[in-house]
């Protein structure tokens, strides 16, 4: 299955600027369904892990107040062409997704 994460990375002076967009509803649990009037259960990404050549370089913990279809940008140091950046997430229901990008 295709990844629901879009990733772009730009390498400059040994620093990789990584930008991602993740397909996720990020439901807060306080919104009501417009039709049924029932609360939509909270459903959001809790952890995002960023790896550089297999080594975890950043972990992000999120609550439901990160926007729908989250955007996340960060910078990886000591990067060079051919390095692999991996971004993966886990949500509060245990679903996961990940994507890999090779630096140019």
């Amino acid at each position, binding site marked *: 299955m*295709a990844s*629901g994460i*879009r990733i*772009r990375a730009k390498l400059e002076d040994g620093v990789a600027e990584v*930008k*991602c*967009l993740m*397909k996720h509803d990020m439901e807060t649990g306080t919104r009501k369904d417009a039709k049924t009037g029932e609360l939509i259960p909270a459903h959001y990404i809790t952890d995002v892990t960023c790896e550089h050549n297999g080594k975890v370089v950043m972990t992000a913990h999120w609550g439901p107040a990160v*926007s*729908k*279809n989250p*955007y996340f*940008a960060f910078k990886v140091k000591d990067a060079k062409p051919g390095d692999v950046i991996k971004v993966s997430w886990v949500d509060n229901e245990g679903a996961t997704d990940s994507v890999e990008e090779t630096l140019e």
Partner: protein
Amino acid sequence: MKRVSLLVSGLMLLVSGPLLADPESDRLAFVNYFEERFPDVELEAYVNGVYALDEASYEQWLQIEEFPPYELAVEDGEELFNTPFANGKSYADCFDNGGIGIRQNYPYFDADRGEVVTLEYAINLCREANGEEPLGYKKGAIASISAYMAYTSRGNRFEMTIPDDPRALAAYNNGKQYFYSKRGQLNFSCADCHVNNAGMHIRADKLSPSLGHPTHFPVYRSKWGELGTLHRRFDGCNKQVRAEPLPAQGEDYRDLEYFLTYMSNGMETNGPGARK
């Protein structure tokens, strides 16, 4: 005071000459209006809608466009576009150049059908010609497909011509009438907000200029949390002045799109867009 204004508009009526001017003089007057009203705004900037007039929002918009939420939908649209119908044919068979880079050719007046054909309308005509159920016109698959087709057409310019066909001119004039007619409990026309009051605040929002309006659709609105088509926006605008909306891709809305796009003729297509 009200009487004076009425009197003035009455006088203007007398000196303003023929009311049903030809589309090209309409367009020139339309563009001229915005150029005089906002002398600092480059004509090309109008394709960015309200962001042409609002610097603070423009900055945030640029940050959103850095990685716009519609990219996911464009990918969905590409996949849908390339998925063959049950009969083995696909969207590519219905459109010029396989459907790539042709967004700017819509809407056009179809002489055989005797009506205005918009891109979304053409998508459903294609489906029906191939034995598929038509898609809903406001959001979902049709918006994604339209977004993908727009994405492949970015930078191409609208080069609309209104054919020398009384039916085409009638469609244009119908759209024009819709645009300038006040409706709803609030008694607003499209022009009241997006021409006369463009750039001014309606409560917390700045009103977008009508010039450039149709160039960037479909749009991902943060409010919707998803993509929607131009006709979904028409629907919303009508509801906001408390007028019951007309059917998406019905004759009136298609004619309105025809008129609106002609007003922005010569501008670049830059859809899909991200909006608040």
